């Protein structure tokens, strides 16, 4: 496997604010990567740094083996669909779809037309007059039809309804399967996309808190539910990610459990509930939030 993106010890400061704090990760070629985290965690900043749109304070970024900053050879292979992209005042969608192919050597016009029909996007209405969802659809269509070897989607579907989002997921999977490429997708709708992702990178307060295969991340936590005493006895001194309780009942999220441990829990009358990727991230980011507050 080869890396399309290699980031080491990357830091980005805005004045006294550290947006990205000594981050290192790599993105393997032809994977769908999820860049997840809360608003303001640093997802957009990372994408801007990877596409040379912003400048690192320190650290090293390699995209296709080179620095992306002002590097036409690297950037010519990328497509960055930004959240709430604005367009020139009088632009209509057809202006976008007429000009986009000039920038993307792999652009597939037929596919673009198919997507336009899928999303029922009016081509001849001023973009300013379009709904939020239709505006997002423009970006999604450009991102898919560009077939850029490295495509970034930054919260690509604000305002898209559930049906349109499903179309996006289906088209992305279908096209990715036929023409593998590297996709980096940032979103806060984690449950919806978690099955599409091969790898997840979770950012919180400018740091990477999870960087693993989506499958492993998903299995990396379990919630144990039962009478408080029984739960505490079972868990012992285990590290606790999250704790909830009503009356005598406790619901505690911990790391992965082995087969025998699961059997032991069942024997003790405890229930084991799965933890979705979204829950896991919420719990993990909460933890670091409190840690942060304590250290401050």
């Amino acid at each position, binding site marked *: 496997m080869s890396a399309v993106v290699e980031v080491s010890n990357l830091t980005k400061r805005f004045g006294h604010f550290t947006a990205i704090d000594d981050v290192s990760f790599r993105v393997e070629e032809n*994977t*769908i990567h999820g860049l997840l985290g809360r608003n303001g965690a640093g997802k957009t900043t990372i994408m801007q740094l990877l596409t040379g749109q912003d400048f690192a304070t320190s650290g090293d970024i390699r995209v296709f083996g080179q620095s992306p900053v002002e590097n036409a050879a690297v950037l010519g292979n990328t497509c960055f669909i930004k959240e709430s992209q604005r367009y020139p005042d009088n632009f209509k969608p057809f202006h976008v779809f007429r000009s986009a192919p000039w920038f993307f050597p792999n652009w597939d016009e037929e596919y673009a037309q198919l997507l336009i029909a899928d999303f029922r996007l009016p081509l001849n209405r001023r973009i300013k007059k379009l709904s939020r969802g239709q505006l997002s659809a423009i970006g999604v269509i450009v991102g898919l039809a560009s077939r850029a070897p490295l495509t970034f989607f930054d919260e690509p579907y604000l305002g898209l309804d559930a049906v349109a989002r499903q179309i996006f*997921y*289906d088209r992305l*999977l*279908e096209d*990715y*399967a*036929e023409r593998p490429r590297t996709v980096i997708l940032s979103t806060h709708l984690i449950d919806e996309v978690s*099955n*599409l*992702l*091969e790898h997840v990178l979770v950012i919180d307060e400018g740091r990477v808190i999870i960087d693993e295969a*989506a*499958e492993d991340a*998903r*299995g990396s936590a379990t919630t144990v539910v039962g009478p408080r005493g029984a739960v505490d006895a079972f868990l012992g001194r285990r590290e606790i990610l999250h704790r909830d309780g009503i009356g005598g009942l406790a619901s505690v999220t911990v790391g992965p459990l082995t087969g025998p441990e699961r059997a032991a829990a069942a024997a003790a009358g405890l229930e084991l*509930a*799965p*933890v*979705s990727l979204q829950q896991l991230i919420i719990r993990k980011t909460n933890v670091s939030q409190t840690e942060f507050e304590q250290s401050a």
Partner: protein
Amino acid sequence: MDESRPIFVQIAEQIENDILDGVLAEESQVPSTNEFAAFYRINPATAGKGVNLLVESDVLYKKRGIGMFVRAGSRALLVAKRREQFQDEFVRPLVAEAAKLGISAEELTRMISHTPAVDSPTARITGTEQVI
């Protein structure tokens, strides 16, 4: 797909179920990894992992350049494996729950013998719809 077990395991089980039900006959071709991915809306790598699990356990085999096929005799293999699991996965929780509710062994036996067997493919289809 449910969250309690890894998705690739569920994919493998889904294929196993289709073989047990006869939806996938022995020596017939199974859908491609990409078809599974599109159908279940999962990453193709995950679907591939599920298929590979069955290749490793000799249920499926690869014909070079054509695709994956169900190995002859795999149905019997699966039935044997599932029978082994039946005690752990179904009977044990059933007995435990019955004990909690004060249902005696005799009563339980009677309840089981009075419960009609459900047409399994239909049951599964409604099951999948709930998940999706």
